[in-house]
């Protein structure tokens, strides 16, 4: 069977590098090109040193981009929408990892991103990129969006409760998220300067984080609020979603809901142990893997449930989900190229 030709627009950043790490070893695809405007001509391994001696691919300018079977877009937010019609001419299938085509509603986009979308006529062509939510739609899709890492860890924490109808939606749902520094991308800023960032625990978006829009859209919740804290990790995001369940809900009801949501999912594991060191989800052991670990605890007296989730933000929260989505869209085994289970200890 011939391999599909895939190319990456924006191959020098962290999500592009993570895609290269996955796609270079994927059994069904061949990486044809990876672009970078500022680093054209340089070798991929010069920017992704883990790939030294695994590929001699050189970054090229977008002007040299050739048609391919699947095109991944790893551009800064706002860039894909400017040239999406050009990208449509280059590939019959596109996965856009940016935020540009995650939201179906242009008004919701404007509300959360603060400016009008420049290609709103194409929003409904894209399927939201989390297979656990949109697997069936992906099977016939041609265009798939990326996912927000903080949205993903929130959506996976809350999905079992929403599907089972256990939430008291009259009460607010507060999702407290801790994130690693790679969420900020490869570009430096004052906050990423080592003396400032190191050992810091900084609430950088207590309210108003843009990924909230993806939770509203995908779970149909309205009274949901994300609160972001940057912690001293490179990879990883973990969510503690605080909500209230309907009266009479027991811990066994929660077990049923979480099993119903995730027992058949290849990349979601329920982690709720009463013994040992690893009783709850922890992003530390997920680095480099596409797994999402999910757990919960219930305060039976008050009805407060704390649903916990952990991911590697560059994997399940970005490039891993993008490859999983490509697998579904292209008819590959859903786990192809994504079997790495992570490291322990790390």
């Amino acid at each position: 069977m011939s391999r599909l030709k895939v190319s990456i627009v924006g191959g020098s950043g962290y999500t592009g590098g993570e895609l290269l790490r996955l796609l270079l070893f994927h059994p069904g695809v061949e990486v044809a090109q990876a672009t970078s405007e500022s680093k054209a001509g340089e070798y991929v391994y010069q920017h992704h040193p883990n790939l030294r001696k695994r590929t001699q691919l050189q970054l090229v300018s977008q002007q040299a981009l050739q048609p391919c079977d699947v095109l991944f877009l790893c551009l800064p937010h706002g860039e894909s929408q400017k040239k999406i019609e050009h990208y449509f001419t280059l590939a019959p299938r596109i996965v856009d990892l940016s935020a540009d085509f995650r939201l179906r509603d242009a008004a919701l986009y404007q509300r959360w991103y603060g400016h009008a979308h420049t290609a709103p006529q194409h929003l409904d062509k894209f399927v939201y990129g989390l297979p656990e939510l949109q697997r069936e739609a992906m099977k016939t899709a041609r265009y798939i969006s990326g996912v927000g890492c903080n949205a993903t860890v929130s959506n996976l924490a809350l999905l079992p409760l929403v599907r089972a109808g256990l939430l008291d939606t009259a009460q607010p749902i507060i999702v407290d998220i801790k994130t690693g520094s790679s969420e900020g991308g490869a570009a430096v800023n004052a906050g990423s300067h080592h003396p400032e960032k190191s050992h810091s625990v900084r609430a950088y978006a207590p309210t108003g984080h843009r990924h909230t829009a993806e939770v509203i859209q995908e779970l149909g919740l309205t009274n949901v609020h994300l609160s972001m804290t940057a912690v001293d990790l490179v990879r990883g995001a973990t969510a503690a979603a605080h909500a209230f369940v309907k009266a009479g809900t027991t811990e066994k009801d929660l077990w049923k809901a979480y099993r119903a949501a995730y027992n058949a999912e290849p990349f979601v594991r329920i982690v709720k142990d009463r013994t040992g060191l690893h009783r709850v989800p922890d992003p530390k052991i997920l680095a480099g893997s596409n797994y999402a670990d999910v757990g919960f605890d219930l305060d039976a007296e008050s009805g407060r449930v704390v649903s916990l989730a952990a991911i590697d933000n560059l994997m399940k929260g970005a490039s891993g989900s993008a490859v999983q989505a490509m697998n579904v869209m292209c008819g590959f085994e859903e786990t192809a190229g994504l079997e790495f289970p992570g490291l322990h200890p790390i």
Partner: protein
Amino acid sequence: MPAVCPECEAALSLKDVIQGEIVVCPDCGVDLEVTEVQPELQLALAPQEAEDWGE
């Protein structure tokens, strides 16, 4: 012998267990004591230490 975890309701299949034996639930990891074997298998939560760093 089939049994159900009293903590999380996972379905367990246990072989050759005896009364008083401690087994582990494969889903929630809780320690379970076999309290009865006949006429049917009965499991109960075994005492465990909670994790608490709030000194």
